[in-house]
């Protein structure tokens, strides 16, 4: 074998390694700056204890977001309706005709156990977020409806079966919007670090 022939597998191996490394680098950088690509289970919504379909409740049953996420217009956390709240409707919607997942909801209620929903959106602990000022701003200043205001950050939950994160909600994302809307908050600097970090 000539030297040239010997070098070919080496070159091919090098190319392959480089390609893999570049792909990994792209994946890591994209996950860092935005949301990860949805491969190998990354970036997908976590598995919930009960397969709760938003589209059924919002689109078909016509329940408003603020009915189940009661605190969203008042406080920091949106909160999720406790299992007693699900029983408003599922006390009657259960039994043989109802979808099988509903039995789980009723079981949680009968066992007097809260449903341990997995968090889909999660900011790191060092970031403080509050829903109320955003909903106030989006509805009062931008004139959106409550549901449209949620879509600004959470995407079209109305049509989602399983909620998943659609917007990166990294610091750049938050600060971009804060910088653009600084004019609406008269004597408060919402790009100051202490808006979100303390």
């Amino acid at each position, binding site marked *: 074998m000539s030297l040239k022939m010997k070098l070919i597998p080496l070159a091919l191996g090098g190319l392959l390694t480089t390609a893999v490394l570049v792909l990994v680098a792209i994946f890591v950088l994209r996950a860092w700056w935005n949301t990860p690509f949805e491969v190998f289970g990354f970036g997908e919504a976590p598995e919930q204890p009960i397969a709760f379909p938003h589209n059924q409740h919002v689109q078909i049953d016509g329940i408003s977001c603020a009915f189940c996420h009661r605190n969203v217009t008042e406080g920091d956390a949106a909160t999720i309706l406790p299992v007693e709240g699900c029983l408003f409707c599922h006390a009657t919607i259960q039994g043989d005709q109802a979808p099988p997942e509903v039995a789980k909801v009723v079981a949680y209620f009968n066992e007097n156990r809260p449903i341990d929903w997995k968090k889909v959106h999660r900011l790191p602990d060092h970031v*403080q977020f509050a829903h*109320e000022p955003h909903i106030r701003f989006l509805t009062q200043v931008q004139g959106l409806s409550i549901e449209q205001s949620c879509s600004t950050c959470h995407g079209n939950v109305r049509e989602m079966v399983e909620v998943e994160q659609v917007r990166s909600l990294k610091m750049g994302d938050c600060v971009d919007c804060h910088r653009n809307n600084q004019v609406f908050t008269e004597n408060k600097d919402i790009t100051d*670090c202490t808006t979100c970090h303390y």
Partner: protein
Amino acid sequence: MANEHKWGMVVDIDRCTGCQACVVACQAENNIPINEEKDFLSRRAKQWIRIDRVWEGEWPNVKARFIPILCQHCENAPCEPVCPVYATYHNNEGLNVQVYNRCVGTRYCANNCPYQVRFFNFFDPEWPSSLWNQLNPDVTVRSRGIMEKCTFCVQRIRRAERTIEGQRGEELSDQKLKEGNFMPACVTACPTDTLIFGDMKDPNSEVSRRSEDPRHYKLLDKLGTDPNVVYLKKVDPHVVEEAHD
């Protein structure tokens, strides 16, 4: 963007009884781990506000003096320019801010602070499991390797802004802070009104009026740090006489 506030504090040493209520309140509000004896002995105890006790005079005429010392939120803060990553800076409300997640733990700032009110996390904070539920969700738990210090309870100021300015559309003032229980934890806890918090920019606020008091002075004023915490001297006729001898 002009901001209307400049937060400050007045500490009337005449009233301080050294009861440590402020220290406990601060500890609970700001997720500061419990200081044990060994922490004090190794000089790694964290107390965002502490009561310095000073003995004055010779026995039997000794007097215990108490001076609450917290971050002075200096306008000319020595800790700020030495930070290589801009994790500590002065915001336009007169607060000296520490951005925990930006901090890389060089400890230059603590070395440069003449008041010794910055604390380094040499270890990860720990609480007994019975206390986990008392942690304040509005305050980040600082992990190992970063600096922390008094924030003037900025989480309470932010909450007050959201409630008073945002929801009610009213002006934020110290009176409203007090009514809504938005004062810093140490101030709310102080039984003798030694600590008074408020807006130094508002000429009618209690802090502005009190800081004009003839007894006023600033800690280590000669260093020119221009603190936002004003102290009111202890008036003690006995000592004044001695001083004139």
